[in-house]
């Protein structure tokens, strides 16, 4: 096959990008916009959570513990338990939110977290109405 001069020079067309504005997202300085519906951290509306442990049952990673709550925010919570998620197990599949009968467990768009201690990755969902 004959190699043409054109084929050697064509890649230089990339140089035209020098004059364009950079496309980089400068993360720590500029936070990118959160996408609605992104599967990030859990939130749990305690005033509607009934402590049924459906989320615990469906979780294939056994990431969800049901722990005792200090004071009942929801009188219908029969067990007095609310879910806590182990982020050393979670895969953010959102099956737990799919099976939640009162729809109290949800995922928010925030998802960024780094820590130097592995024992800190137990997460108590924030009490936020969705």
């Amino acid at each position: 096959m004959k190699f043409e001069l054109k084929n050697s020079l064509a890649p230089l067309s990339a140089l035209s990008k020098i004059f364009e504005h950079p496309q980089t997202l400068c993360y720590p300085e500029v936070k990118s916009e959160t996408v609605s519906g992104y599967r990030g951290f859990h939130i749990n509306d305690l005033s509607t959570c009934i402590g049924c442990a459906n989320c615990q049952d469906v979780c294939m990673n056994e990431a969800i513990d049901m722990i005792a709550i200090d004071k009942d925010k929801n009188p219908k919570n029969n067990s007095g338990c609310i879910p806590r998620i182990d982020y050393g197990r979670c895969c953010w599949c959102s099956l737990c939110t799919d099976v939640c009968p009162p729809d109290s467990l949800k995922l928010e768009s925030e998802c960024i977290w780094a820590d130097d201690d592995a024992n800190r990755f137990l997460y108590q969902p924030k009490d936020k109405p969705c």
Partner: protein
Amino acid sequence: MDEGFIPYQQSLEDEEQSIKSTQSVIEQAIAWFRAHSMFVLAYGTGCGAIEMPPTFTSRYDIERLGVVGVATPRQADILIVSGYCSPKTLKRVIRSYEQMSEPKYIIGLGSCTINGGMYWDSYNTIKKLDDFLPVDMYVNGCMPRPEALIEGFVKLQEKIRANSSEAGYIQYRTRYAHYRANQERLFGTQVQPRYEENFAGMNL
């Protein structure tokens, strides 16, 4: 009731007192340079390797922070263990880590390095990476987004600049017996060379 990452909140108060810099100016300068030239070993050990190209290329461009990929462990400062680790990989990861020159740091990417993640009941993945190697920074997610990986690097920079004696490589030297015991429990004694020999003459 506390929300968010619970034990973290409980430990917030203790931490404020602990980070008081006692470094000299030169030490601070060295730490600053270290924190801004982190060479990452290009070893994609697991799923997480798929989010490394976006992090290292033009979209997120982590080179802004001084993070560059290098090919051999001898030149690298940072080892990213990207997700699950099978024992077969872990052996190579340990060998790579021991070949790296100090100071060196490990970033654990995703749930799998913390408590097994999705593969918690798999017979062929390890569950707690810090049993075998000292991990300096864990990044949350499965997969962590490139932003989360950058967050891990930013926090690691702070840690490097604090220059504390709890850095992973110092832990690995001083608590080598502990790590070695766990490694031997998994692999048996014969397979790995002993890391101690590398720093036999050093003043610990």
